[in-house]
């Protein structure tokens, strides 16, 4: 563990900005504060690169255990309980580092995307918007940096409230409905998480009670106690895993807990959609990787079959639903559901390659989906509607924007050379070759058909929106402005960079930590096979 202060600044700099937003005079100053704060946070987060070696593929893979390589750690007692303290414990490792960078970047670009706030048809002012926007960033960064379960929970809730208002106040026509749906769904999930949080504390043997996520995963006494305990007459591990899973699954979102997502996306303003798709959805996957799998590996193997199936359902179901959409934004929302299915599938098989693929897909989708949502936003700003069938020939009208749009959607489609391909390919090859699961190959084949469906709905959309004759009513549309290109260009550059140099841009940062997590698992799926066999009736 290497102590440091960087993360504290990172997490609370946006809070300072939020306070400033409330006191500076004038709308323009508020906007400036918003952009400068998020920009400064992004620049600050780049300082984390000093701890990670992009050039070294094997560093941290061998020789150290989970939680031993943490950087920028602050660990102080926050609330003293009788058993153990609740700590303010933050730090980054290879798992959280890419997500922190992604968060600061997407938030910064979303702030830039909010620059035309005056043109939104909303009644409420800009001051509250940016204040909540910055608080949201604090919440998100806190979630990714917290290593104390209690602290994690606090930040998880901190993030929830600003989001509720950002959708509910500055959203579209059905904003109240969408916001309350989002809120209640997520709250229901966090209540289940709270139960698990308390159970972890109370079921640990005396003297070992802790909220420390690293110790919960690595302390043999705790692991032994969790392995044998019963919770309301049921095995402790599986019950906790299911509780946590529902909490995280709502966020991802996993079928059948996903119906809040299309509504929230359709109603949310463009920058909020970018954050929602780019970062908030990733918290579910992060939670599974940080909490569920390290602490409850046996339950993970127990549930693997079902989780993989849910992942495959997400992929196919999301893609088919996307195919039926006429609302552009809803289409992108369903495509998010489909793409996050690959993440779930990669996690479910619990191999290093599966985790690598899942995490790569998390980051890749974190780049391509905000880009796609912004692309939708650009034409929404001009046309004030999102009906796919009413568009046509936009590439002729707006050539630069059309080219960037093609790139963004092809990244989402998984074209080799762009970021989406690596994640999908990695998850599929990992699933296909996961020999310990008898069901893995059929699942991989089913999931791979999603690749064709994705091409289907994306190209069909491109054909209807961007190709074809330029329609009269859209001929006056101005080309993408410098600000819009400034938002899109970093996404485009990253989509290419991750596709061409996946090892150097991502894998080398996170492989070590992911490997350490899989090392916590019991020897390859011995118990799991029997459980899966029982479920399959063999």
């Amino acid at each position, binding site marked *: 563990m290497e102590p440091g202060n960087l993360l504290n600044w990172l997490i609370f700099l946006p809070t300072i900005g939020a306070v400033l937003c409330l006191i500076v005079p004038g709308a323009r100053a508020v906007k400036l504060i918003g952009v400068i704060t998020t920009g400064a946070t992004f620049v600050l987060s780049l300082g984390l690169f000093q701890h990670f070696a992009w050039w070294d*593929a*094997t560093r941290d*893979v*061998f020789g150290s255990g989970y939680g031993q390589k943490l950087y920028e750690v602050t660990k102080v007692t926050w609330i003293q309980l009788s058993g153990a303290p609740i700590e303010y414990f933050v730090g980054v490792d290879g798992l959280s580092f890419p997500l922190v960078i992604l968060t600061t970047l997407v938030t910064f670009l979303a702030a830039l995307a909010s620059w035309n706030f005056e043109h939104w048809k909303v009644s409420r002012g800009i001051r509250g918007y940016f204040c909540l926007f910055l608080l949201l960033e604090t919440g998100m960064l806190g979630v990714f940096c917290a290593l104390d379960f209690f602290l994690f929970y606090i930040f998880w809730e901190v993030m929830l409230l600003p989001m509720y208002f950002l959708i509910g106040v500055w959203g579209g026509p059905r904003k109240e409905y969408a916001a309350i749906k989002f809120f*209640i769904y997520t709250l229901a999930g966090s209540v289940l998480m709270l139960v698990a949080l308390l159970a972890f504390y109370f079921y640990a043997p005396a003297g070992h009670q802790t909220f420390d996520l690293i110790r919960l995963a690595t302390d043999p006494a705790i692991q032994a106690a969790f392995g044998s305990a019963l919770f309301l007459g049921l095995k402790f591990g599986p019950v906790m895993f299911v509780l946590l899973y529902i909490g995280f699954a709502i966020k991802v979102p996993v*079928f*059948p807990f*996903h*119906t809040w997502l299309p509504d929230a996306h359709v109603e949310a303003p463009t920058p909020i959609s970018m954050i929602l798709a780019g970062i908030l959805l990733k918290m579910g996957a992060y939670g599974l990787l940080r909490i569920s799998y390290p602490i409850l590996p046996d339950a993970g193997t127990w549930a693997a079959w079902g989780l993989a199936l849910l992942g495959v359902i997400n992929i196919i*179901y999301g893609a*088919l*639903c*996307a*195919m*039926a*959409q006429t609302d552009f934004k809803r289409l992108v929302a369903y495509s998010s559901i489909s793409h996050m299915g690959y993440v779930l599938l990669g996690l479910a098989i619990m191999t*290093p*390659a599966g985790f*690598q693929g899942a995490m790569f897909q998390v980051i890749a989708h974190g780049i391509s989906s905000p880009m796609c949502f912004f692309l939708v936003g650009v034409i929404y700003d001009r046309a004030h509607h999102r009906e796919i069938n009413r568009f046509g*020939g936009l*590439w*002729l009208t707006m050539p*630069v924007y059309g080219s960037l749009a093609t790139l963004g959607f*092809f990244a989402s489609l998984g*074209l*080799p*050379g762009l970021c989406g*391909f*690596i994640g999908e*390919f*990695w998850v*599929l*090859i990992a699933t*296909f*070759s996961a*020999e310990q699961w008898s069901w893995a190959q059929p699942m*991989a*084949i089913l999931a*791979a*058909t999603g*690749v*064709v469906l994705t*091409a*289907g*709905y994306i*190209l*069909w959309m*491109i*054909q209807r929106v*961007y*190709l*074809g*004759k*330029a329609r009269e009513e859209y001929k006056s549309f101005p080309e993408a402005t410098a600000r819009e290109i400034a938002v899109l260009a970093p996404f485009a550059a990253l989509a290419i960079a991750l596709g061409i140099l*996946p*090892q150097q841009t991502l*894998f080398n940062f996170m*492989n070590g930590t992911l*490997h350490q997590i899989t090392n916590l698992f019991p020897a390859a799926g011995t118990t799991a096979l029997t459980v899966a066999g029982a479920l399959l009736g063999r």
Partner: protein
Amino acid sequence: MPLAEAQALAILSPGVYATLPLWPLVGAVVVGLMIAGRAKAERAFWPVVLGVAVSAALGVTLFVDLGRPVWSAEGHGPGGGGAGHAAPAASGLTYTLFNWMSFGADESLAPATNRWIAVNFFFDGLTGIMLLFVTAVSLMVVIYAIGYMRDHHGHPERGYERFFAFLGLFVFAMVMLVLAGNFVLLYLGWELVGLCSYLLIGFYYGKPEAAAAAKKAFIVNRIGDLGFALGIFALYQFLRGHVQPGENPLDYAVVFKYAHALATTGAGLWGLTQADVASLLLLCGAVGKSAQFPLYVWLPDAMEGPTPVSALIHAATMVTAGIYMVARCTPLFGASPAALDVILVLGLVGALLTATMAMAQYDLKRILAYSTISQLAFMFVALGCRAPHAGVFHVFTHAWFKALLFLTAGSVMHAMGGVIDVRKFSGLRTVLPTTYRQMLIGCLALAGFPLLAGFWSKDEIIHAAFERHPVVGGLLLVTAALTAYYTFRMFFLCFHGPQRLPPEAGAHPHDAPPVMTRPLWVLALGAIFTGYLGVQVGAGGQFLGVFTPHYVFHDYLGQSTLGAAKAAAGGEWLMYVSAAVALGGIALAWARYGRAPAEDPDARLLGGLWRLWHHKYWVDELYDRVFVRPLRGLGHVFFGTDRYGVDGLVWLVSAVPRGAAFALSFLQRGALQGYALGMAAGVALLLLIWTWLD
């Protein structure tokens, strides 16, 4: 004659050859920057032409360089230097640029031994031949496009720069595909050429048909690629147990090294071996990319793109990628008789089916498109008959004359003001004399006219087919006859008979400018002479006493993963038969269409059969009914389920607390008597429970 690493590549170092794909990409990027900088379109072709020219120069050098053992070999006899024994499977040179992705370190191995998917290139005889024609034909097409993509006044069309940028990108992708040294990089090139094809078919994206055709091409290819990707997964899965430390499981060299092991291990599925499973899955990709039955439907529609694109991508280079891949994987496919049989059957069905379709079309480019599918199917048959050398030979000759044919068709289209319906014009031989001569050469080569390039390569395939089974050979002969017939039906309809011009052609239609005709002469030379790389001329030959098949081309190709070619034995009479078949087809076409009759005699004669051909057996309509519409319907079913099923359930759950709240709200109407009664009842209930618990 294995290509030993020491003797390989002496003229330039592999590192220099590895820059081959880069130059067209640089050209494309420069053009992109010019577009962004709003430079004038007039000179936008220069960066790409230069980039492709550098690549072509490197391609020719590489071809010469890789062939040094062949050029220096003294005295050539049938079977070449490698006669009698097959070359080792992995006889190429793998050159690694950088490691792309790691499968993760394997802890059972020494620390830090990663298994990589590398960015590496593979050089052997097949690479040399593929790169030679890919870069050279591309260069000709790019030069031709300088003139073609302009209007009658010589002004560049809208999107002129974009066109060249895409062409540069395409050459980059195609060269990557050919050079790739492992299956994942091959897949990258594979999908990138698909992307370029998508962009270029949809080049006139203002046209709804072009947009639809582009989408169709990409999606149909993706269906094939799904199998291809699964094939890669299967290979990785099968090979994981075999590879030694330091070997990357998806490199060609490694896969082919263990191909024998795969052929002897069962896959646990319908009695297939692992080699069968991997080959059949990879084959799906080839079927899509090389437009084979049943995934050929995208290629005719791809003719919506500008003609140079049709020539380059949809005739000469990209569509041969599937043939290339199967030939490249000869050690793997050769170990799987099941896969070879499937290839053979698909090839036969495709060749015959699309040849008949070509008989009854009027669109100049579509006739050529169906002939392309038919010729690709010929190559498939060659692969299926264990004669990959013949297949690659036909790929090679076909590239020249098919590019020539498409580009001359483009010249016709250019002169006719964009009209390509052969019913709308005729008798063009005096109007477009140069185009007439060039197209005649192309048609003769395609029809298999003796002594031209297409004759030699096609004959070799027919030969191999007869060795496999007389029925196979017979079917190919029928297809060859049809080919000669429909090719010249098209030719006579365009160029012979009375002179008729469409109004779109303007007052004085004329031949294309030199920038367009000169590259065509180069291609025409190729259409005539490239066959002689594979045919030995000398006294005592099998054909006309002078010509003997099997020459340096086959020796050159022998030093590749294909292994040494075996010379055809016996059957000298076949060459005379196939020559007669070609001449007969041409003669029949002359008899029926030599005067370019206004009314189609075949349509009258064949009636319903002709209509069946004309409507392409209604395959497109069938696919639409069976696949496209049901899938869209399924989308609506799923969305309906989502809307009313899943979300309805959510609504129901949320209705419980709302309903309860509504019901309970009746208890709170402000009447004190009610509250008092409720309180008393509650106290009584509590007391009751308390006594009961005691």
